[in-house]
């Protein structure tokens, strides 16, 4: 949130400002010259991007997703289930390989950010498993600074991925294994916990960590909900599931973010929008990892949703709301559908208008 030092418009300052910015005042070296400049601008050399479709607001141009190596539309449903096997006791073992590297990514058209990334993308891979699974993560640090992986979940102190505990910070070129049982079920996250923490988080080292409930442990309505949530069940297949990590980038490193987004790319879901089916149930795993700002939020237009804070319950913690807010590392699950709605574009965005206009804004295109 760029700080606004709303200056008092005192008269002296006002006069000075006239001199300084000179600004406003000036009509160009000559009227003819200005007119010529204006004419030349009427034939823009610059390709107009998505912005103009929305009343002039928005970025100009397009992001080269290929060069980034990831497309925000793919990130929505790109689950990493790990390579699974069964342990002697019958427990499912999921093994993941995560590599941290330095990588420049384009977060808004033409705007590049020197990021630190897990597996080449921001946010890192969406790790998905089932309650009670054994999780084993081989972590390699290919970056230029010491990194860790700190999971929000239940685990031993030595597996916490913080400096000075267990393996502590993993030096460049080093590696470690994080291992724990997946508890509790819910919508969680992981991130680097190296010092300085702020820098390691806002540089891009974070991702979603989703633990599906085990339906065998629940009964009644809760069992139905668990079946719908568990990616191994047939009921889950009828739901359109998406993950969105609310993040932001401080491109000039002044402690304020210049770009806000979900899944990194400013206005990444404006053009093209996210296509969803009118009659399909929607489940959105939402994680907030925005650095520097105390909270972030999501507002869905023209519709309401049920909300499961942290995703650790099978019954909603909030019913029929259209806006929720999350502090950093808070997360939850949104469930909604557009049954009976008119087909068309339905907006969603942070309801800090400032974040929205700095990139955290998108559309669902509801198809009949």
């Amino acid at each position, binding site marked *: *949130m*760029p700080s*606004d030092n*709303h200056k008092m*418009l*005192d*008269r*002296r300052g*006002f*006069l*000075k*400002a*006239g*001199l*300084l*910015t*000179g*600004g*406003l*005042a*000036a*009509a*160009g*070296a*000559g*009227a003819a010259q200005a007119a010529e*400049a*204006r004419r*030349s*601008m009427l034939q*823009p*050399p*610059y390709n*107009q*991007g998505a*912005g*103009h479709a929305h009343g*002039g*607001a*928005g*970025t*100009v*141009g397009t992001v080269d997703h290929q060069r980034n190596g990831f497309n925000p539309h793919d990130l929505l449903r790109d689950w990493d289930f790990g390579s699974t096997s069964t342990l002697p006791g019958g427990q499912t073992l999921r093994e993941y390989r995560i590599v941290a590297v330095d990588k420049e990514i384009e977060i*808004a*058209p*033409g*705007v*590049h*950010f*020197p990021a630190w990334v897990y597996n080449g993308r921001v946010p890192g891979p969406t790790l998905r498993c089932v309650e009670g699974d054994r999780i084993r993560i081989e972590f390699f640090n290919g970056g230029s600074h010491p990194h860790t992986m700190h999971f929000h979940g239940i685990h031993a102190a030595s597996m916490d991925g913080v400096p000075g505990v267990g393996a502590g910070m993993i030096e460049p070129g080093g590696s470690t294994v994080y291992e724990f049982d997946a508890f509790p079920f819910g919508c969680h996250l992981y991130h680097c916990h190296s010092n300085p923490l702020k820098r390691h988080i806002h540089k891009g080292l974070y991702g979603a960590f989703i633990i599906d409930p085990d339906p065998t442990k629940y009964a009644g309505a809760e069992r139905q909900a668990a079946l719908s949530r568990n990616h191994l069940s047939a009921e889950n297949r009828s739901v359109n599931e998406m993950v969105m990590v609310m993040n932001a*980038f401080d*491109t*000039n490193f002044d402690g304020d973010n*210049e770009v806000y987004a979900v899944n990194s790319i*400013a*206005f990444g879901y404006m053009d093209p929008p996210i296509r969803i089916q009118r009659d399909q149930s929607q489940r959105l795993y939402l994680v907030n990892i925005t650095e520097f700002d105390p909270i972030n939020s999501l507002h869905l237009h023209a519709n309401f949703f049920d909300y499961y804070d942290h995703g650790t319950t099978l019954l909603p913690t909030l019913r029929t709301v259209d806006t929720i807010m999350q502090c950093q590392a808070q997360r939850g699950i949104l469930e909604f559908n557009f049954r009976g709605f008119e087909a068309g574009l339905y907006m969603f965005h942070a309801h800090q208008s*400032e974040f929205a*206009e*700095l*990139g955290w804004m998108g559309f669902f295109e509801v198809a009949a």
Partner: protein
Amino acid sequence: MTGAAELRASKSQPRPGRIPAWLSALLPLVALALLLSVFTLGDPLAMFKANLPPIEDLTFERIRVIPDGFEVTLVNGGPDPVTVAQVLVDDAYWAFQMSPSPTIPRLGRAMVHIPYPWVEAEPHAIRVITTTGVTFDGEVELATLTPELGLGQFAAYGLLGVYVGIIPVALGMLWFPTMRRLGRRWLGGILALTLGLLFFLLIDMLLEAFEVSQALPAFLQGVSLTLFAALFTWLVLLAIRNRGGQARSQDPLQRGVRLATLIALGIGLHNLGEGLAIGAAFALGEAALGSFLVIGFTLHNITEGIGIAAPLLPTLRVQEEAAVASGAPATGGPTRDSEPSGAPRAATFIGLTLLAGGPAILGAWIGGFAFSPLLANLFLGIGVGAIWQVIVEVGDLLRAYARGRGEGVVNWINLGGFVLGVLIMYFTAFLVSF
């Protein structure tokens, strides 16, 4: 032949086998070209740069408020080309077009056209973000249409210059008859008051110039520009004065007029700067503030008329003459009590008023229609040099006057006049600077 003569002789007659003069003159250039090619082709400083991102330095030279948005002129003062990736208005990404190109070469310029529904009389913040994520900010303090050059607007801004330049100087000069009737002992005080006024203007202009220079791209070296413009102006005025030195014995009235003209010129340059500021401020809008500002400047500048008229006082001229005479008794110069050579003509006063006040009109036009921090910086620097020379000359006059009366320069009347001059300027500046 002495050693030195020998040396001279050997220089004048090139010995056979020696490198011809043109070639030896070329040699350093060839060496320089070699060095440059080493730097451009190879990269001897590579180890210092490593992977550092380029240093980017964009300056908002101008922001024009146009009916459908803003027109921003950016200057690249950094060592590398800079590419603008996105534009934000009030913390929102916004559509824009750039000409000739989003990439601005070193020391180059580009125009950014931003269609934006700006709000009358409210501030707007414009930010550009480059491909490396670096940001540069410009501010529209109060949005209102930047005036377009039209006859009506032209006349209005000209009138503004008349209000703050011509009228106050003319009003100040109306005190001339009063000053003439003042007792002699007070005249030194009037000169000292003029000095106080001039010192205030000198400092005011210098500070103003330094402030303007901050808006310039670094490569223009604004502060040096101001100081050297001041130095050159002062030296030029000094040269003009020294050339006139042979005609020292000219008519004392003409000498008075000459000094008054110099004062008027210096003050005129100061008023040009003031006109620039006022023109720019008016172009920013705020008519209510404007009329207050104009009254303030009128009061503030009235003292200037007194200062310009002071050297024309006949009694003063007599005193000066007496001082000159006593300083050079061989000439046996006349010491008259009557008026020396007629009173200054009305045309002289009008001319002086135009010279001192007129530039305010020019300044208002430039400030209103074609403001450039570079021009402002230069004008202010020239003004500083001119005012300094005026201070020197008025100081000479005051010294001569004091000597003629057999007093020290710093006496209570002179000191009082000087302090009063500064205080009048200081307190009337309250009207234009809060």
